[in-house]
């Protein structure tokens, strides 16, 4: 392989590598017919990112044919194309140390809030929620009410890249458990960040007919409702306060919001997913160690073949990550 990058593209390449480095420690460089693919995956296999640089990106691009890995992307039901500024503005409301964020969508709105585990910390954690109207986005199409929770930290790598290049970001999300995909595209490159999401935990559901595993999007215009009665605190202050109800608020989703599970593969291909082993280690507080669908990579297809409807054939399965994180 012999590729030469010149001019401003050097910086773009550097920033792509930098944002991949926020995902994992190793960079997979794969020269392909349709461009150079740079990929990274984190050690717990819960986040994956890929940049594909078309031959036009380079002043010289010559490769010899080598091994071809194949990858297929998950089905995406929803597409939200975000103005980059919007995404950056959203993220700024959350502290840099925040790990997990829950994104919920309805027909007209998107809610982004920090995800807090329902354990000891929940009663004292600060909760932040941001509500975005659909017309703030370039394109907003949500076919179902969905809530997904993923790691915000890994998203920041993409934001840094996109901010420096000024490209819009597209977000594709599905139901809990399916990965959320964020993409940046222009004529010479395409970057995809694939993040695992918390799966539906049946023990968390208040009602088996509802799809979301966290509180569903609150009714719109809650902020406009100034009725103080709904915020009355009835406490007897002559005794020391004890912890109030620390359970998660019950979902208040109205209407039928059962998420669709299409039986057939749509125009996007599918990543082989396996359930991660549930690990009972309490000191590991990160997304991948919960009941969770991790991403396993059989093979990696160049993104341009996403339109293929070929079913998966034999895959080379990488070892499952059951190593402890420290």
């Amino acid at each position, binding site marked *: 392989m012999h590729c030469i990058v010149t001019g401003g593209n050097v910086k773009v390449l550097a920033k792509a590598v930098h944002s991949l480095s926020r995902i994992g420690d190793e960079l997979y460089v794969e020269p392909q017919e349709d461009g150079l693919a740079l990929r990274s995956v984190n050690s717990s296999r819960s986040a994956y990112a890929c940049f594909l640089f078309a031959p036009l990106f380079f002043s010289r691009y010559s490769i010899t044919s080598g091994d071809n890995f194949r990858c297929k992307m998950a089905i995406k039901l929803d597409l939200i194309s975000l103005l980059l500024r919007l995404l950056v503005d959203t993220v700024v409301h959350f502290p840099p140390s925040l790990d997990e964020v829950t994104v919920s969508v309805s027909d007209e709105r998107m809610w982004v809030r920090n995800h807090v585990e329902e354990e000891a910390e929940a009663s004292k954690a600060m909760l932040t929620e941001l509500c975005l109207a659909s017309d703030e986005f370039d394109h907003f199409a949500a076919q179902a009410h969905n809530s997904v929770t993923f790691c915000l930290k890994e998203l920041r790598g993409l934001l840094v890249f996109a901010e420096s290049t000024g490209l819009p970001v597209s977000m594709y999300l599905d139901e809990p458990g399916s990965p959320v995909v964020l993409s940046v595209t222009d004529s010479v490159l395409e970057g995809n960040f694939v993040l695992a999401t918390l799966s539906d935990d049946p023990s968390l559901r208040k009602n088996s007919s509802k799809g979301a595993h966290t509180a569903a999007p609150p009714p719109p215009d809650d902020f406009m409702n100034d009725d103080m009665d709904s915020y009355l605190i009835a406490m007897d*202050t002559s005794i020391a306060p004890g912890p109030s109800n620390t359970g998660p608020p019950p979902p208040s989703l109205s209407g039928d919001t059962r998420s669709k599970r299409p039986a057939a593969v749509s125009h996007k291909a599918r990543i082989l997913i396996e359930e991660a082993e549930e690990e009972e280690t309490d000191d590991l507080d990160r997304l991948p160690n919960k009941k969770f669908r991790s991403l396993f990579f059989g093979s990696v297809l160049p993104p341009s073949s996403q339109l293929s409807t070929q079913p998966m054939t034999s895959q080379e399965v990488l070892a499952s990550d059951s190593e402890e994180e420290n």
Partner: protein
Amino acid sequence: MKFRGKIIDIACLNHFTRVVTTISKLTKMCVLRLTPDNLFFVLSGKVANGGVSMWCELSQANFFDEYQMEGVSSEDNEICLEVTPENLSRALKTVQNAKAVKVKLTKKHCPCLTIAAELPTLSSVSRVVTHDVPVDVIPRRLWHEFKEPSMPDFDVSIYLPPLKTMKNIVDRMKNLSNFLVIEANLNGEMNLKIETDLVSVTTHFRDLGNPPWGDDASQDGGPSQSRDPESMVEARVDIRRLQQFLVGQQVNPSKAMCNIVHQSVLHLILLHEDMSLQYFIPAVA
């Protein structure tokens, strides 16, 4: 118990945020007292925080365009909450460009101060961000711990040098010693001194001026009247406490002064247009 306040003016929001941020630099947790006219951030002197105490008073009318509260009862028309000011500061800092910010006492998974802001957008619908900051309600039987501290019977009261200057000096002195002696007299002179086995360093300030408390401040018609203007009183304090106080100051106060009770307590007072902050650092032997 109800509380609901709304800030619309950007300058008020900015100022309020800076006050809260200053408080957050002084202490991890404090008590917020809400009365019909005022907000108080209170830290009562406990062994755990080295005996340091703080009293910050804001007039609500200077910040809030709307302010409604109902206290615990009609005789005790007050709300007392234990809060982590850093959470409030963080929430407020992200909404500096809001069209309106509401602060409400709410009950979510626990009692919270909810900061809800309407942010400007290009679309027809505002963007709304809410931060729920958990608080603990302080029961009435503990309210006596958070009363306004009385003005100590000080020996000398003197205006402080520019806080930035003081901070720079204290920062450097901290590298040499854990304790600093602050001494002052009624002639507008103040010295900051540190002493170790190897070295002693003194910084002298002159012509600072002494606040004209007059006879009102001192109980018996005044030790300050009979004191020799040249004679210094001093307090030896933990330098980190003084540094913490200086580091946190975000706004230049209209007036900054300190009262010293000889070898007993250092009482720092900052007066802004619509806010006053008092900070007590006990002297150590």
